[in-house]
């Protein structure tokens, strides 16, 4: 028999194990935030879950960690995966049994995306939400969305919904490129 190649299952199991050389008790809360800031949103891998504003808080006493996470949309199919990715990153840092707490309040809106996150979205080719979600009117006028590729304001909406629950489809009338817009709610 040839030498055993680690299968994806082995990797998965290995990732559940706490590394022997880890010293989680030395981690500060700040360090844990930095750790979470490296966990990318699986559907929009340009921003981290911290930049997206869905990690709401954590409590850490050197042994037990609890992280509050909120979904972007009620039916966001990535919710479970995001929670799993966060738990995995924490376990890899040596934290045993991190508790992921799903919270609904205060409800996530696009206002929770950090400035850094917005800039990263733009560079990635996704137009960040414009302005404040709380000022959106129910049946109001269309907002001006700036093309993330050429910076033109001369854009038009193709569809109110896009490839994921959080995006709409737009097209630039100057550079003619279609692009995603992080819809403002």
């Amino acid at each position, binding site marked *: 028999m040839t030498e055993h190649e680690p299968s994806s299952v082995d990797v998965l199991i290995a990732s559940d194990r706490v590394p022997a050389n880890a010293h989680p008790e030395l981690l500060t809360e700040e360090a844990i935030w930095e750790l979470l800031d490296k966990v990318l949103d699986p559907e929009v891998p340009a921003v981290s879950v911290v930049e997206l504003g869905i990690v709401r808080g954590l409590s850490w006493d050197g042994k037990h960690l609890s992280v509050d996470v909120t979904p972007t949309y*009620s*039916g966001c199919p990535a919710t479970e995966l995001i929670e799993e990715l966060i738990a995995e990153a924490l376990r890899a840092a040596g934290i045993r049994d991190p508790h992921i707490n799903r919270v609904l309040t205060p409800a996530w809106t696009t206002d929770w995306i950090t400035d850094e996150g917005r800039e990263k979205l733009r560079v990635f080719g996704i137009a960040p939400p414009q302005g404040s979600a709380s000022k959106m009117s*129910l049946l109001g006028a269309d907002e001006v969305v700036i093309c993330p590729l050429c910076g033109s304001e001369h854009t038009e909406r*193709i*569809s*109110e*919904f896009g490839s994921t629950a959080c995006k709409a489809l737009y097209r630039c009338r100057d550079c003619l490129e279609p692009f995603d817009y992080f819809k403002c709610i």
Partner: protein
Amino acid sequence: MTEQQALQNYLLRLADSDMILGQRLCELCGKAPAVEEELALMNVALDLVGQARNWYEYAAELIDDGRDADKLCFLRDAHDYRNLLLVEQPNGDYAVTMARQFFFDVWHYFTMKSLENANDERIANIAAKAVKEATYHLRRSSEWVKRMGDGTEESHRRIQDAFDLLWRFTGELVTPDDTDHAMFKAGIGPDPEQLKKDWFGMVREVAAQATLTTGAEDAWMYMGGKKGVHTEHLGFILAEMQFLPRAYPDATTW
């Protein structure tokens, strides 16, 4: 009926209406008239199914008889379903799909807006999330109603026909029964009078902009969904929706 029973009943109504409309919309997956419309319909359905799960989870905790959200959704029969008759009506042509959505969205928007202030924290939190999604849905469906109503001769005829066809199912949205009254009295549900006023107000406003006529407020209405008396359509929806978990009850990954 105790307040606790009314609350459980009310939660199941919210959950079932979201779920059945979500299921109806998903029937259009792969069959929508344009890819952008398909994306939109599936996204709306996704929001509704997500909200349904939130309501089912809370209902399951209160009912506390060992059933979880999945069991409430997949193992109850038609007479135990409490959804509005409107949402189980077939998709029809696109005018019917959007008229049904619009009538529902107006009800959904005002109901969630009110529940956001419910004196039950869990309900208020779920509704605060849902109202943002409902607002987005309403903006889209009302735009479609206006576009079709104020569009071509054919689109106008079709959306007017859809309004006329579905009007008979709208009474149930704004006609309160014991459960609705109990929920209002408990400081949870919306004021039935206000909900009725808001619903007719917005429906008539959008209809006027769309050059459409609406039926009378006192027209004869089909009722019963909220009590488990359904039109013939629900059984077929459940048959499709519940087949897998009923046939393979031990399956954990589908």
